[in-house]
């Protein structure tokens, strides 16, 4: 930007508006290492006791099992979304087929319409294929939910790959599949990466689906684990402990985000435009 305008008033205004976020997240950090009761602005003694859940399953139950489950859960979703979205996005962006228009419109409509309200239907489908109350089922549903978005994003990325590369590949004698795999896919790596990140963040935080579709599964994910810690009916409710677990749960996302921020942003710029 040019420096024809002044900046300080803007920064002040922004700070005021961001106050709730700053406060909430600052105390999220502070409260995990102090004993301040909710609402007290000045933290008292420093303590690591709220982190004892890391080694002491007695505090809130074993956390490493759910952590591992969540990692698996997230990884599977990411893998499925990437595989399917990268092929379907390519088809919609580049390949000749009847009803292409219809498919694309369908993806767009679905993309805009989250499915949680149709959960009974989803339940029946899962039950029908025998995956109700299994993590596999939830993985499939969650991946399915993200697909329209993923396909849409990938289509956007494919659209930016010059046709000439594809034409050159075909001229060089490669089949469309080879062209896709060896020439086009490498061009949309940033898209794949961004989508993977996005899917990972989304899957990592998922709460509704495991809760409804796998309530008693043997594998608990962290969101459900965290919710048991936060149960407002429980009289042992402890904000500080909850926040520690919550922070533990959120850190991977924050880390991913902080490290790959720019890459992640491409998805918002690239995908959701009109």
């Amino acid at each position, binding site marked *: 930007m040019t420096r024809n305008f002044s900046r300080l008033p803007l920064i002040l205004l922004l700070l005021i508006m961001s106050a709730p976020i700053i406060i909430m997240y600052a105390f999220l950090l502070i409260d995990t290492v102090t004993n301040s009761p909710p609402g007290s602005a000045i933290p008292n003694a420093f303590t690591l006791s709220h982190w004892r859940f890391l080694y002491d399953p007695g505090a809130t139950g074993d956390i490493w099992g759910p952590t591992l489950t969540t990692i698996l859960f997230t990884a599977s979703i990411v893998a499925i979304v990437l595989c399917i979205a990268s092929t379907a996005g390519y088809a919609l962006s580049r390949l000749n087929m009847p009803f292409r228009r219809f498919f694309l419109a369908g993806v767009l409509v679905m993309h805009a319409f989250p499915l949680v309200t149709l959960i009974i239907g989803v*339940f*029946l489908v899962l039950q029908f294929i025998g995956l*109700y*109350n299994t993590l596999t089922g939830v993985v499939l549903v969650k991946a399915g939910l993200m697909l329209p978005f993923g396909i849409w994003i990938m289509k956007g990325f494919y659209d930016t790959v010059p046709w000439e590369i594809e034409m050159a590949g075909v001229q060089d004698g490669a089949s469309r599949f080879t062209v896709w795999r060896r020439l086009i896919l490498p061009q949309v790596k940033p898209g794949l990466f961004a989508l993977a990140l996005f899917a990972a963040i989304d899957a990592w935080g998922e709460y509704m689906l495991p809760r*409804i579709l796998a*309530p*008693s599964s043997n594998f608990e994910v962290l969101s459900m684990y965290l919710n048991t810690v936060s149960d407002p009916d429980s009289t042992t409710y402890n904000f500080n402990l909850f926040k520690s677990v919550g922070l533990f749960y959120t850190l991977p996302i924050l880390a991913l985000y902080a490290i790959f921020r720019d890459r992640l942003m491409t998805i918002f710029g690239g995908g959701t435009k009109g």
Partner: protein
Amino acid sequence: RDVTVKVWAGGTSESSMYRIDAIKMAADILSREAAVRGDDLKVNVEGQTWTGWDDFKQAVTLAAESNTAPNIIVSGHEDIGPWSKSGLLRPIEDYVDLDAWPLNQIYSNLLDVATFDGKLWGIPEDAEARPFYFSKPHLKAIGYTDEQIEALPEKVESGEYTLYSMLDDVKKMQDKGVVENGMGFMPRPVNGTDYWQFYQSFGGEMTDKETGKLLLDKQALTDMYQFFVDAVDKGVVPSTYLGTAWDSWHDAVAHDKAGAWHGGTWHKAEWETKWGLKDFFGQIEPTLIPAGNARGRANTITHPLVYLLSTTGSDDDATIAAELISIASEPRINALHAVKSGHLAIGEAEAGVPLYANDRWTTIATEEFLPHANSIPNDPDFGVVWKAMYKGLEASWTKSSSVADAVDGVETEVRTTLGDKVVIR
């Protein structure tokens, strides 16, 4: 032979873990009995609990649809209606010997509660009362003497002391400054059977005695809604009260910040173990729920949980599960749950178990409240009425609609959904 029996329990917090643990103990006993008999049988129990009811019932229902329901379900007796109708339950009477120990000593009225359509579907797991509580120090602050306080339960029972008397008293407490404004009266903060007690206080009945159909008494409903609106108008409870967190409620009532409230007998256990309540009897006076007006009566509702046998699994599994339920109903084992969680005994013999008999609270509850207790119907359609009733209560309480409109809304909803399956008066 290794058999795994799954048990799910709803509305279960740490103090009521014996709902599951009793089954585990039973499994141990059953395995040992088998070993003594020389049978090769090892029974494992997989328990899962939910602290709330919404998630639990959702999970059970969906699991049942996908044939993965647990073998034993611990839920409120009112679920027997819909669940038996949908084929989720086996009638437990086909699996257990009611003439033999320990089931033959269970209170027959509790068994009646677990009976639907002429069949016994579940074995009661606990019983309870849902008393009204007064703060003794605050009563004294507005001029009650010790004797008057002691006489209060009787005055309530006789109908002399009504809900409106209570409103006046807590208002006085607030005016006196011993209770903060808006904390005079602290009803249960969320939906629950308790609210049917107020309906009864104003003369409402849940079933029509003649036809056996569900009954909606508009007058009682109107009076009951009006009562809470009056309470709001008096300033003893906020209009936005419903939905308050349990924690805030526990904190207030256990630390003597409220004037009067109501809850379950089991809450005493929670206040003592989790909220540091030292002198329950010195601080709190329990009574029945007072009558609301001349039409109604002082009452309390017992909402027994029952062990239910699901249709999941083989008949053999069900047989074993049923045996576990029988064993878990042994007085000594069940008394662990009753005393630990502040619930009431399910049978005569249990009342004699020292752990239970020596407990002052359970004794009071059993003797003073249980005789006046009734329960909600098992009718599969009762949930519709209940949901409508609570919606109407929320609407009028928050003043989003007038009492009359709220009652009309309930009537419309119940009538359109259930038609003539319900008698509306």
